[in-house]
């Protein structure tokens, strides 16, 4: 009994401590942030969190926002909507953040977006690709590409830049993979691509034996395979091991040094559509890549850069609005024109970003620039 009482006292104490901490930081401006730090998506959550923290450190080092320091309020959502909803409410109701950033996946982001919209708190999705996120309303923005846009860019990359026409699609069975596939297919006719076959796999798969055998029999000119580094790494190495030598085209899900580590030699020559250009001359991007590696101890990835960008965009809006009130802040956000680590960010009427797609290729064990797709017609996101 005494021991139980002790635990309760400890818990209450810890709670009081947290609350006291929150009160002490009253002279700062808070930015809400949620990402999956435990559970299956913890790796992306970690990159995103470090990226966001880096942005806050950089801004504070440069004097903060109109004299006030930024504070990142970070919560773990386990990539689950049932957790993201209370978190959104907590950020709004308890932490009273004027603006928030999602460093999480589509499902939690889409669920939280509704809550932020309802409370009129501006909300920026860093890398979730679900098309309906920004449709939650005018307070929701996205600083990354829609899955569909990236799929279209992939079609252009294969059909036009590489000139390959007979394509096998290997599609990841989730919102990311499906959105990419939809975008890719919508452009096949324009670029003269014929889809030989499409296969699907689950995010849990790491062994692709039968799929590889079938793709080999299909004998395509190129492979458009969606996935994350942890599925794409094994997939690419197994395709190459089976003797499939045609170009493999991926997307931002591959965009991590870990992909190259897993696939090893097989990664060489793989091209992806993403938003982080490793060979960029833009100071914002170069600076980010260096600073991230210094802070994290490993190389930057797309997720980290996207979270970094989103927080930078939030800070920029806070600065220009000169206020933490809801309406001026939303207006400032909508008028964003900012050079950030993942490109120049500006929003359309729906809150979707308009920027160039960076194609990166694996060369000598590192990501390097392959080409850039900057075709406003192709990359135009929906505006309603």
């Amino acid at each position, binding site marked *: 009994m005494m021991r139980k009482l002790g635990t309760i006292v400890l818990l209450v104490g810890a709670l009081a401590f947290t609350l006291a901490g929150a009160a002490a930081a009253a002279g700062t401006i808070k930015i809400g942030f949620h990402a999956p730090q*435990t559970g*299956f998506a*913890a790796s992306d959550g*970690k990159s995103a969190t470090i990226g966001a923290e880096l942005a806050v450190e950089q801004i504070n080092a440069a004097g903060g926002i109109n004299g006030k320091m930024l504070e990142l309020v970070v919560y773990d959502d386990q990539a689950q909507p049932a957790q993201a909803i209370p978190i959104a409410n907590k950020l709004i109701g308890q932490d009273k953040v004027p603006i928030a950033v999602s460093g999480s996946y589509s499902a939690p982001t889409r669920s939280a977006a509704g809550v932020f919209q309802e409370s009129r708190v501006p909300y920026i999705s860093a890398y979730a690709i679900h098309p309906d996120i920004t449709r939650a309303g005018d307070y929701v923005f996205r600083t990354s590409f829609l899955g569909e846009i990236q799929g279209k860019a992939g079609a252009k990359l294969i059909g036009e830049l590489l000139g390959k026409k007979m394509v096998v699609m290997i599609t990841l069975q989730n919102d990311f993979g499906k959105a990419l596939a939809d975008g890719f297919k919508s452009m096949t006719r324009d670029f003269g691509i014929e889809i030989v076959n499409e296969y699907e796999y689950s995010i849990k798969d790491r*062994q692709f034996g039968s*799929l590889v*055998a079938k793709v080999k029999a299909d004998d395509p000119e190129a492979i458009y395979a969606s996935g994350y580094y*942890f599925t794409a790494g*094994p997939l690419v190495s197994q395709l190459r091991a089976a*003797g499939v030598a045609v170009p493999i085209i991926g997307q931002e899900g591959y965009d991590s040094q870990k992909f190259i580590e897993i696939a090893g030699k097989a990664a060489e020559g793989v091209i992806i559509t993403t938003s982080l250009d490793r060979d960029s001359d833009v100071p914002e991007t170069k600076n980010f890549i260096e600073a991230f590696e210094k802070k994290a101890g490993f190389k930057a990835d797309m997720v980290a850069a996207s979270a970094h960008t989103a927080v930078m965009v939030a800070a920029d809006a806070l600065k220009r609005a000169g206020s933490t009130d809801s309406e001026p802040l939303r207006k400032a956000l909508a008028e964003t024109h900012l050079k950030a680590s993942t490109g120049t960010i500006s929003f359309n009427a729906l809150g979707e970003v308009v920027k160039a797609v960076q194609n990166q290729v694996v060369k000598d064990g590192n990501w390097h620039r392959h080409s850039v797709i900057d075709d406003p017609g192709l990359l135009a996101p929906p505006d309603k």
Partner: protein
Amino acid sequence: MLFFELFVQGLIHGSMYAMIAVGLTLVYGLLRILHVAHAGLFALGGYLGLLITNATGSLALAMITSALIVGLGGMLVYRLCYQPILDRPPYVPLIASIGVFIAMEEVFRLVFGPYGLTYNHPHLQSQVTLLGLNLRGAEIGMVITAMVLLGGLSYLAQNTRIGIAWRATVDDPEIAESFGIDAVKVRYLNFFIGSGLAAVGGIFISLLSNLVEPTMGGVPAYKALAIIVLGGLGNVKGTLVASLALGVVEAFGTIYIGSYLDRDAIAFAFLIAVLMIRPQGLFTGR
């Protein structure tokens, strides 16, 4: 040719399932426990194998050491987790086991980081051409190892004192005990062997994908349960057949009906269909 290749790939996948599921069915046969934490031990095997290989450069050493350590780990799980609650209804050890599994996954993440680890020896990814098929060394190694280990196990079970004691205990613990067989010792042995097998399986899987992640036990955690049910709970031979059958069904299923049902759904549709026709699984008895 494609048919043959898919079939071979199915068998490769199936032998991977077998190495995980046999340990699980051994535990079920003896204790009537759905041992979900087995998948955690499988992942532990993967981690140890990778760390030892990367440190020493010897895969064989890694296999043996990690099988031994994980075998001991399995005994520990039995002692701490199951032994005190054996007389409870089956859902009690099941939930306890799930708790242990979640905790293990989290410990892996906290200790080794969320990103996963990779082998630093590229030669482990060698390739072989056999019967006109391009296969990887690790695939062939896995199938051979599975055959040797599982074959050896069944030989031991048939022909050695301890093996006979084990089978007797599975058949009827009370009678076995009356013949002077130490049931507790048999249980420990059971967990040791089953967990060791899972560890070897974990190493091969991680070689095949060149990736060890905290969540690598996630799929075996439930898929292996389906397999041992399919094989007739506690039936080792049935489990082998079910593993290979499921491997083949999935190999063809993911290619030809993958756009209607995902891999898991295919596997479980197969399972439910079999169970509705044969409620005791493919093979009855123990």
